[in-house]
């Protein structure tokens, strides 16, 4: 493996450090000074941003970056014949991530200054956000699965801590625990996958495994003895399980909507732009492994699993998003849905399209979240403003879109940037970034389904197309309910545009949400392709792998179809919600769908199902079986039994002690005393008595020695 000089790898290795140091400084020293806290945090991300930009712009100038990545490896833990290594690796995929992550993060950090102003735990927020940023950057520059997993888990922790940031709210800490537990399921499987891969190959380095045809072939040909899969397929599926948890795919998607309990910048950064895409990033990263498995034992099972989970999640989450009233929850479902798109793309082999969508999605989804945060912020302040005059009445939910309306005139910047983000999400043709990336995914599926006639791409295409219509619909619904028509509450009527620190990131991100897609315009697209100079993104990221995938040539049919799909969804939304804006108190027109609406609104009852199947039995097990039977009956019984045994043994010994031991001791004493008492009478103190005894004694002896022999002599 040839590498690029020494300066760039060093810079790449330094990228995660500034936020990490900022985390330490804020947590240890700066937590009393708000201004210092956010200055440190933003400064650190800015440094990382500058480093990343240097690395990125140098990286894209390198010819064949895939073969000659910017890399640095340091032996770290000498275990077994090959030491575990730490190192950095910036290949094309890593480079585009390095472009996106610090940029979006920097915007969100700046935005947070405005959004979190006045929060008592301001410094804690920035400390955790910095730690999160460090972990994400570590994950991006990592050159092996172990480092990636470290970043992955630290992010998991930060996500937990930030979802539960307002931990005094029961719903917030419940959501935090839910997120943590749900992702844990995936993480454990992922760790298994990592261990399995290490056991099979003796290395975790991406370059050693993924760019080494012999290793890949060996992995693909070794049976794993599980469901007839090859080692490669099993390992990639185990790693994919981690992605399912982290990127909130079915069946582990339930935590992401609840994660919206966290502050909005957190939702934007962690639960839309970066952390959840880390799952997709990992799957794209391990794509060669997945691909290797295809030709080995078990065939394309792994591809089927990935593609169907992705496509199904995309569709399912889109349907759930249609019936939500919470502005952030709609976005949460759209995030799940879009992540599903990416994974479906990986599953049909279009990993470049997935990476493209990952990048554009990060921009417009961060934009949408920050926009919704701006709206919530404004409505909340409007509510306080209105409340001062009318007094606080019933509980008010500033996230509920039915409490909004007519905000377009009151918050024009937020409105227009939100529309930009929304159109990008819906894939509005030609002028939004989302169109180009989504079009590439749909185009690949279309190509596979109709040009090659394969079944899997057809299924994926149908599910994704349906999801795309729904995406357009709920995006329009959201825009209409939030911004159009007349205010439905006092709070909305009193809403004001947010401060500059919140508006500027929106504008900046909106720029990328619109123009970010032009790096990936398909070759041969009329007019535009010539204008922006071909499909740069595909050529660049495609170089990540050994086999460069062919970029699909432009064909009008898929583009036409995906444009039609996006526009039909938007048009449907427009017809239902925007043509005649809802008045205050009017029910959702969707409610006319009856049971279907309830089904969607209750998220297909999946949460309830999990509650019944996993949570309640677990609680039952904890309360009844463990707490009562195990703890109180078995363990307590055992302990009490031992205690009772020891107690009675002690009593017996005590009796023995009192009766026998004390008896002997006291008895000897008493006997001596009694003897003394009796014998003392002999001591009269009268000298003549003593003398008498002496005389009698002598007489006795005389008798003994003189008279007795004489008597014997007779």
């Amino acid at each position, binding site marked *: 493996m040839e590498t690029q000089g020494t300066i760039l790898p060093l810079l790449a290795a330094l990228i995660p450090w500034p936020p990490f140091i900022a985390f330490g400084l804020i947590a240890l020293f700066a937590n009393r000074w708000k201004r210092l806290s956010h200055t440190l945090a933003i400064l650190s991300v800015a440094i990382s941003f500058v480093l990343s930009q240097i690395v990125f712009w140098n990286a894209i100038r390198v010819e064949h970056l895939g073969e000659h990545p910017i890399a640095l490896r340091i032996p770290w833990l000498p275990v077994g014949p090959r030491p575990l290594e730490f190192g950095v690796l910036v290949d094309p995929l890593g480079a585009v991530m390095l472009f996106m992550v610090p940029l979006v993060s920097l915007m969100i950090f700046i935005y947070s200054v405005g959004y979190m102003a006045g929060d008592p735990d301001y410094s804690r927020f920035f400390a955790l956000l910095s730690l999160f940023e460090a972990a994400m950057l570590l994950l991006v520059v990592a050159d092996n699965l172990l480092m990636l997993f470290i970043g992955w888990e630290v992010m998991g922790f930060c996500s937990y801590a930030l979802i539960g940031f307002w931990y005094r709210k029961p719903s917030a800490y419940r959501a935090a625990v839910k997120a943590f537990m749900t992702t844990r399921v995936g993480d454990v499987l992922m760790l298994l996958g990592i261990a399995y891969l290490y056991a099979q190959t003796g290395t975790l380095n991406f370059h050693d495994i993924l760019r080494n045809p012999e290793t890949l072939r060996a992995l693909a040909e070794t049976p794993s003895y599980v469901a007839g899969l090859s080692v490669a397929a099993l390992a990639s599926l185990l790693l994919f399980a981690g992605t399912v948890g982290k990127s909130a795919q079915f069946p582990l998607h339930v935590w992401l909507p609840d994660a919206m309990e966290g502050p909005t910048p957190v939702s934007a950064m962690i639960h839309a732009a970066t952390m959840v895409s880390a799952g997709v990033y990992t799957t794209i990263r391990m794509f060669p492994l997945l691909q290797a498995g295809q030709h080995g034992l078990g065939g394309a099972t792994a591809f089927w699993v990935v593609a169907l989970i992705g496509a199904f999640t995309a569709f399912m989450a889109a349907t759930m998003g249609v019936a939500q009233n919470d502005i952030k929850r709609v976005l949460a479902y759209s995030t799940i849905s879009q992540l599903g798109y990416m994974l479906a793309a990986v599953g049909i082999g279009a990993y470049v399209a997935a990476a493209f969508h990952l990048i554009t999605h990060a921009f417009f989804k961060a934009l949408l979240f920050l926009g919704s945060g701006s709206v919530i912020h404004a409505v909340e302040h409007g509510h306080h403003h209105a409340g001062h005059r009318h007094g606080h009445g019933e509980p008010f939910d500033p996230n509920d879109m039915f409490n909004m309306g007519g905000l377009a005139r009151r918050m024009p910047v937020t409105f227009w940037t939100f529309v930009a983000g929304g159109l990008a999400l819906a894939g509005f043709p030609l002028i939004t970034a989302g169109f180009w990336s989504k079009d590439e995914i749909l185009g690949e599926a279309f190509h596979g389904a109709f040009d090659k006639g394969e079944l899997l791409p057809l299924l994926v295409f149908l599910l994704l197309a349906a999801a795309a219509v729904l995406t357009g619909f709920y995006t329009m619904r959201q825009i209409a309910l939030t911004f159009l028509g007349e205010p439905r509450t006092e709070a909305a009527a009193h809403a004001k545009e947010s401060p500059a620190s919140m508006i500027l990131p929106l504008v900046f991100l909106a720029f990328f949400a619109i123009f970010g897609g032009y790096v990936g315009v398909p070759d041969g697209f009329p007019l535009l392709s010539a204008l922006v100079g071909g499909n740069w993104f595909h050529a660049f990221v495609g170089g990540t792998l050994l086999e460069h995938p062919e970029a699909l040539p432009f064909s009008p049919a898929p583009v036409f179809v995906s444009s039609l799909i996006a526009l039909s969804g938007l048009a449907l939304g427009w017809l239902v919600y925007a043509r005649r804006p809802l008045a205050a108190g009017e029910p959702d027109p969707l409610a006319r769908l009856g049971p279907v609406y309830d089904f969607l609104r209750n998220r297909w009852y999946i949460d309830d199902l999990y509650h019944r199947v996993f949570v309640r039995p677990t609680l039952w097990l904890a309360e009844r079986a463990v707490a009562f039977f195990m703890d109180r009956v078995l363990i307590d019984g055992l302990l009490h039994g031992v205690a009772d045994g020891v107690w009675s043994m002690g009593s017996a010994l005590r009796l023995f002690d009192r009766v026998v031991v004390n008896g002997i001791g006291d008895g000897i004493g008493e006997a001596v005393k009694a003897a003394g008492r009796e014998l003392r009478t002999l001591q009269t103190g*009268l000298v003549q008595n003593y003398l008498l005894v002496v*005389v009698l004694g002598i007489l006795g002896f005389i008798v003994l020695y003189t008279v007795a022999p004489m008597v014997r002599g007779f």
Partner: protein
Amino acid sequence: MVPLTWYLLVATALFCIGVYGVLARRNAIAILMAIELMLNAVNLSLVAFWRYLHPTATTGQAFALFVLVVAASEAAAGLSLIISIYRNRETVDVENIDLLKG
């Protein structure tokens, strides 16, 4: 010549009188005197044995002289003790001197 047996009889008689005096008298001084009697009885028997059995050896006489010396010192020590007791308890009656009673 008077036979040895007579001397021994006199000595025995003297000794018995002494023993009786020691055991029966109450006056401490009288007891002391009775002890002197017993000592002299022994002296008498010692001298008699020397004269009749080993007239050439001087052991008997020397023994008698030692007894005299001891008797003198005993009398001195005894009397001083009695005086000391009398000063403390104003009595020389041994019935009343029972400080060592158990």
